[in-house]
C-alpha cells in the first residue's frame, strides 16, 4: 500500500505526535508498505529517507503557547506536490484540527483520508472547530482514529462521527534492555520519575512529598528524576538532609532515558490528569519496571486496573508513600508486577498497533479510488 502521512509539528523538535508518526511509519515500512511522511522540517538537517520536509516551521502563537507549524500558500503548494508525486492509496493526517500541514492536506486532497486525533480538544479549539473552513476540510475524513478514550469523545462530540480507538504504540524492543546508569539503583532502593518538572500536572511535587515521608525510615533510598525544568527549584523543596539523595538530571537522550528506566526499582507516574495515554508509563512498563501510578483513567487502562502496576489515590502523597513502601519491601510483588507490566505492554507494541491502523486503511480504501487532488 502507498501511504502518505502528514505531521503537524516540526520534525526537528521532540514531541509525542512526531514520535508516534515516526514509530508508525517505521512499523508500516517493516510490514512492507510504501510510506512517505510530510512534516515541517529543516531541509538542511539529516532526515529519515521517508520524510519530505516543507521547510523550517514558523513559530506562531496558537492555543496559548508558541508552536512551530507550517501553513500558508507555500506550504499548501508543497502539500499539493507531495500528494501528486506520492499517488497514495491512503492519506493519513494527524491532529487535523491543528493549523498545519495535515489540515492543508485534508483541504487539497480527496479520496480515502484517515485522521488520528492525539489530544483531547480543549474548549478553545472546540469553538474554533465551528469555523466553516475547518469543517469543510474535516468533512472529507472517512476513517477516524483516536489514541485515547478522551480524544475519541471530543471527536464524537465536536467533530462529528465516531472514531476507532487505537492507543499509541510503544517500541517495546527499544526499552527492554539497557545498562543501568553508574552506581544505580544501589542497595537502599531507588524510585524513578520522568517528565517535565515544572508542569504541575506531571505531579513531581506529589512524589517529592512522598519521598519526604519515605526517606527518613529508609536511609539508602534514593530518587532519580529526569526531565526539563528548574531542578534547583525542586531540589530546594526537599528538606536539606534529603537533597543529596535526590538526583535531578536534565532532559535525557532517548538512549539515556532507557538507561534511567533500568536504574531504578520502582517507577512513579504521579500525574494528576490531562494524560491521554501515558506513553512514559508504558515505556517504563516495556523496561519491565514495577509501576506506581495515580488512579487516573489513562493509567487505569494501561495498567489493567492495577493488575499490571499499583495505583494510588490521585494527588495523595501519603497514599503514594504507602503504596511505594509496600512495593519496596516486597521483591516478590515487584517481580510479579514486572512480568505483568511486560505482558500488558506487549499489546501496545507498534507491530500490533500498525496492524490495527492498517485495517482502518483497508476499510477506507474499499470502493474508493486513490487519493487525488480535490477539484
Amino acid at each position: 500500500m502507498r501511504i502518505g502521512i502528514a505531521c503537524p509539528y516540526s520534525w526537528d523538535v521532540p514531541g509525542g505526535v512526531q514520535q508516534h508518526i515516526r514509530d508508525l511509519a517505521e512499523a508500516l515500512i517493516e510490514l512492507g508498505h510504501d510510506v512517505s511522511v510530510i512534516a515541517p522540517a529543516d531541509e538542511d538537517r539529516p532526515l529519515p529517507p521517508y520524510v519530505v520536509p516543507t521547510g523550517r516551521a514558523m513559530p506562531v502563537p496558537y492555543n496559548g503557547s508558541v508552536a512551530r507549524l507550517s501553513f500558508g500558500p507555500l506550504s499548501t503548494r508543497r502539500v499539493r506536490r507531495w500528494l501528486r508525486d506520492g499517488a497514495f492509496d491512503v492519506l493519513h493526517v494527524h491532529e487535523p484540527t491543528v493549523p498545519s500541514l495535515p489540515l492543508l492536506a485534508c483541504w487539497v486532497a480527496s479520496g480515502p483520508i484517515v485522521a488520528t486525533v492525539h489530544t483531547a480538544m480543549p474548549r478553545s479549539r472546540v469553538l474554533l472547530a465551528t469555523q466553516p473552513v475547518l469543517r469543510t476540510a474535516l468533512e472529507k475524513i472517512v476513517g477516524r482514529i483516536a489514541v485515547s478514550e478522551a480524544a475519541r469523545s471530543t471527536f464524537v462530540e465536536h467533530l462529528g462521527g465516531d472514531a476507532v480507538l487505537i492507543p499509541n504504540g510503544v517500541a517495546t524492543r527499544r526499552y527492554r534492555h539497557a545498562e543501568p546508569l553508574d552506581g544505580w539503583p544501589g542497595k537502599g532502593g531507588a524510585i524513578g520519575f520522568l517528565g517535565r518538572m515544572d508542569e504541575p500536572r506531571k505531579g513531581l511535587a506529589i512524589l517529592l512529598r512522598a519521598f519526604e515521608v519515605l526517606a527518613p525510615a529508609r536511609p539508602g533510598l534514593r530518587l532519580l528524576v529526569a526531565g526539563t525544568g528548574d531542578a534547583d527549584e525542586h531540589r530546594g523543596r526537599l528538606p536539606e538532609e534529603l537533597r543529596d539523595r535526590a538526583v535531578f538530571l536534565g532532559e535525557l537522550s532517548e538512549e539515556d532515558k532507557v538507561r534511567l528506566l533500568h536504574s531504578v526499582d520502582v517507577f512513579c507516574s504521579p500525574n494528576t490528569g490531562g494524560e491521554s495515554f501515558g506513553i512514559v508509563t508504558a515505556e517504563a512498563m516495556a523496561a519491565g519496571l514495577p509501576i506506581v501510578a495515580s488512579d487516573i483513567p489513562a493509567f487505569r487502562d494501561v495498567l489493567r486496573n492495577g493488575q499490571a502496576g499499583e495505583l494510588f489515590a490521585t494527588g495523595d502523597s501519603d497514599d503514594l508513600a504507602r503504596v511505594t513502601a509496600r512495593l519496596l519491601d516486597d521483591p516478590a510483588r515487584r517481580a510479579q508486577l514486572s512480568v505483568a507490566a511486560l505482558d500488558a505492554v506487549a499489546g501496545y507494541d507498534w507491530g500490533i498497533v500498525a496492524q490495527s491502523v492498517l485495517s482502518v486503511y483497508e476499510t477506507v480504501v474499499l470502493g474508493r479510488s486513490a487519493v487525488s487532488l480535490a477539484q
Partner: protein
Amino acid sequence: MTWTIIVLAVLALVLWGFYVSWRASRLDRLHNRTEASRTALDLALVRRASAAAELASSGLLDPASSLLLADAVRRARQAEAAERDLAESDLTRALRATLGTPEFRAELRAEDGGDAAPEVTAGRGAAETASADGPDGDPDAATELLDEVEKAANQVFIARKFYNDVAGRTLDARRRPLARVLHLSGSARQPEFFEMDDELTDGD
C-alpha cells in the same frame, strides 16, 4: 511702605493662584486627552480584530492560516485587561505569520491575475488547477479585505504611538513637584503605557 508690600504679596499670591489653576487645568486636559487617546486605541484594536476575523472566515486564506488568525482574534477579544497587551501582540504575530510573508503577497497577486499555482500543470490537465487554493469570492474583494486589515493594523500602530506619547506627557506633568505637593491630578487615574508588538511587516 507696608502697604506696598502687602499689595505686592497679595498680587503675587493671586498670580500664583492663577498659575496653579492653570497647571491644574492643563493636567486635567492632559488626562482627558489620555483618556480620549486610549479610547481611540481601543477602537483601533477592536477594528483590527474584526478585520482579522473577517479575513479568517473569508475563505481567502488556507484553512491553517484561517484557524491561526481566528484563534488569535478570539484570544485578543477575550483577554483580561492585564493580558490585553500580550494577546494583542499575539494577534500581530499571527497576522505577520499569515499575511506578512512574501509568498502570500505573490499568491494574492497571482489570484488577482486570474490564474493560480502555475506549477500545477504537468500531465493531469487543467481541471486540477488550484481550485481550493484561492479565494471563494472575487480577487477584488480579497484585496479589499486585506487592505482593510492592513489599514486597521496601521491605525493601531499610530493610535498606540499617540496614546503612549500623551500618556508619557501626562505622567511627566503628574510627577512635577507642584503637582505632587498640591495633588493637582485629583482623582484622575495614573495612565499606563500600552506596550505591544504592532509591526505588521517586520519579521522577527
